[in-house]
């Protein structure tokens, strides 16, 4: 190739740099759909939020719903259960944090911080140890027992016996009507 002066080099290089940059921008823009297609589709997102009817749930009953692919426990607590849960001092708990997505991250795990209305406990049914589904009305605390490794939760879904490290998570939810909640 012919030798060039600095000025010619600059002119020629600018074109190549410009072309390369435009091509690179195009490649990045073209790459985005390939990455985004793995994100949840609109069909999956439409199920990201569910509405749960509460009319048929009796006091003392716990019903399991499917929410974002996992079990969701909705439990209608009896006055006795509510009193038991409220009587537990936070200092007795393995995990003193409320783990309630409706509240700030550091809210303490008082029973009041574990629900919106005391009668209704809405809690994720995924054991915080390794993800098994605990069984209701089993264990020493009247809540749930996880058969996988023996973790036990009370009637507010708080872990009382390990190896689970955290209380059962409470998802974002709200009451649309006194008998219907929207979760997620």
């Amino acid at each position, binding site marked *: 190739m012919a030798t060039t002066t600095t000025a010619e080099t600059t002119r020629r290089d600018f074109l190549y740099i410009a072309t390369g940059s435009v091509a690179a921008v195009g490649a990045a823009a073209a790459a985005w*759909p*390939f990455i985004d*297609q*793995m994100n949840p*589709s*609109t*069909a999956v997102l439409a199920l990201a939020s569910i509405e749960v009817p509460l009319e048929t749930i009796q006091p003392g009953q716990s019903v399991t719903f499917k929410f974002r692919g996992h079990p969701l426990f909705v439990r209608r607590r009896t006055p006795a259960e509510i009193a038991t849960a409220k009587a537990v001092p936070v200092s007795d708990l393995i995990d003193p944090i409320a783990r309630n997505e409706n509240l700030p991250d550091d809210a303490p795990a008082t029973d009041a911080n574990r629900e919106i209305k005391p009668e209704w406990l809405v809690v994720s049914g995924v054991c915080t140890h390794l993800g098994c589904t605990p069984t209701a009305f089993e264990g020493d605390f009247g809540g749930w027992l996880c058969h996988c490794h023996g973790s036990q939760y009370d009637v507010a879904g708080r872990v009382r016996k390990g190896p689970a490290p955290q209380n059962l998570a409470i998802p974002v939810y709200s009451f649309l009507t006194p008998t219907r909640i929207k979760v997620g």
Partner: protein
Amino acid sequence: MSGPSTYVPQTGFTRWLDSRLPLVRFAHDTMLTFPTPRNLNFWYAFGAILTFCLGVQIVTGIVLAMHFDPSANVGAVPGSSLAFDSVESIMRDVNYGWLLRYVHANGASMFFLAVYIHMFRGLYYGSYKAPREVLWILGVIIYLLMVMTAFMGYVLPWGQMSFWAATVITNLFSSLDQITGGLKVGTHVATWLWGGFAVDDPTLNRFFSLHYLLPFIIAAVVGLHIWALHVPGNNNPLGIDVKGPQDTVPFHPYYTAKDAFYVGLFAILFAFLVFFAPDFVGNPDNYIPANPLVTPADIVPEWYLLPFYAMLRSIPQKLIGVLVLGGAIVTLAFIPWLDTSKVRSNRFRPLMKQFFWLFVVDCLVLGYCGSQGVDAAPGGVPLVWVARVGTAYYYGFFWVLMPLIGLIETPKPLPDSIAKSVLGAAQAPAE
């Protein structure tokens, strides 16, 4: 030929790597410094364009496969199948799914447009002639793999055309019964292909597996194809051998720049189809879920298979029709030995050049015949007879004209060298 490698590793790391696995040297020698004839024109860009197409199809195919369900069983939508529903879910729910699907479907058409131009270029400039016979045959193998891949891919959405095209083509194998008598080899082959008594869920499942596999086999054969090219080096529009370094330029930056520009133009056409006419080359019947009990009014393959479809339908006898169809592709492998001319490029073959263009027209006419109904007779001319003449010319071009013309034609005088021809561009004969 490329001569000894001129790569010199510049850093400690590249010296270390080069002595253990000369990958960078390999890339340098084959894609950067490779001496390429300086007179390659637009028609020579389609190798790079094809590589672009293969890459696009593989990448879009892999992400589509993340969402596709290869099951013919009915799902949530009555009268449909999980496969069809999954494609509609890709179109409606998956982020940019509509874009990925349209790119993949139209990409197949663009792939075949490019491969046909590439093949016609090879025919015109005599790129199949010695010492490039193996290169040409590898190309025929790639083409055959492409046809198989595209056929199976079209079946996957499980629309009416998917199902019935699969039925018609797999049924062709049963024609072998005619020559195997009581053994019924044809029926057994068809049953084996179907995994049942007709095209159904097992067929769809295995077509999905093979459709995913074959492109990687294509990629491997493309590697061999490029290797076979690099042994003698590229042919060129003059058809004369490279005489020395004055006839060539290094592949980079000369042909990387030139090919990039042509890939850009190709991408413009591709994008126009995808964004503004995504269903133009497709068939509306494939938006109807497959129904084994209802045959569409006209079963038509995608455009790139139409010439062969016309040949098949022009022969009333099923087995002969199948042999004519298969023979049309197998014939391509014999071309290096059918053409007797000592001159490669049609630029210097005034007689053959005319028959070549007639052959191009013949392929287009056959394609048109394939697109119409079996009984079509526009202006009173039954297309089945046009297809018969077209098929006769197709075979005649390779088996009669190629051997004959080379013997009787007086070629134009060849230039002394590429460099001389290029420098005296005003005197070079027109294409």
